[in-house]
């Protein structure tokens, strides 16, 4: 049984990065829907709050990225013995750290520096 599954993974190795017609069509339909909805939201101004719209856009983008990964890039836990998934997870971790870290640090920098320096200038102007 084990030998059989190992043999299968070897045999499927060449086609690990290729899906069936059904995969591609499913992925395409999902991608079109997931692209059209945020465009429709923004162009039709569906939400009054831009924060809500931004959150919805990012949510749809995240789902669509997963759809592309699964149906077009054929990501799964088996391909290349799981190494592609491991590399992807590591990269996603680095991306999250880089993005959230940059935003966090720069937000606090703006928050702490800008008003404070303005304050400082006001204070200096009011100084005798």
């Amino acid at each position, binding site marked *: 049984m084990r030998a059989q599954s190992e043999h299968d993974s070897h045999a499927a*190795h060449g*086609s690990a990065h*290729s899906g069936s017609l059904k995969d591609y069509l499913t992925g*395409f339909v999902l991608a079109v829907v997931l692209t059209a909805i945020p*465009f429709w939201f923004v162009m039709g101004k569906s939400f009054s709050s831009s924060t809500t719209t931004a959150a919805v856009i990012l949510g749809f983008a995240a789902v669509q990225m997963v759809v*592309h990964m699964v149906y077009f*890039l054929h990501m799964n836990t088996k391909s*290349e013995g799981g190494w592609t998934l491991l590399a992807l997870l590591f990269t996603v971790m*680095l991306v999250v750290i*880089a993005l959230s870290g940059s935003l966090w640090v720069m937000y606090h920098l703006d928050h702490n520096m800008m008003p404070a320096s303005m304050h400082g200038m006001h204070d200096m102007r009011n100084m005798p």
Partner: protein
Amino acid sequence: MSDPSASSVAEPHFYSTHEHHPENGTLLGFWLYLMSDCLIFACLFAVYAVLGRSYAGGPAGAELFDLSTVAVNTSLLLLSSITYGFAMLQMQRGRLRPTLVWLGITGCLGAGFIFFELREFAHLIADGAGPQRSAFLSSFFTLVGTHGLHVTFGIVWLVTLMVQLGKHGLIAENQRRLTCLSMFWHFLDVVWIGVFSFVYLMGVLS
């Protein structure tokens, strides 16, 4: 050491022969390259996220971006993804001519994408909203331009592979190369999802 039979038996093994080794490491290696490329784009996205509101008194995204052009570009890239998928399916069946046709369609869609993107850049620069206008526009041109450059090189690669296919047919080497390019092409589509969501759609909001 004097016994010749002992030395042949005790042949040292410096690697495990039972471990799973992929017969072809190219696809895994290419995937790792894509992940490193992903980090480049992550840095550019982070730069845009930080500088995207620094207009320096210049125009904001809401005044500059034309969503209908972005919608056209998005559909071109999305369509090119599925046509490349069709090319891969034809390749697996060993049919050279349909493979070439689908690859050609993919290349045309990619070229259309580049055409609309360059037209948009030309409009922006003509309106005085070039990369030197503000930090927002510098980061915008860097991020979107880097993606466009990737697509351009993808098209160069695609044409090269079409020539090689015409010369040598669907040999194993060409199949491997086509698989690498398919990963590259779909990866660029994934990056574009981030670009149109984060840069264009969210840029138009405020």
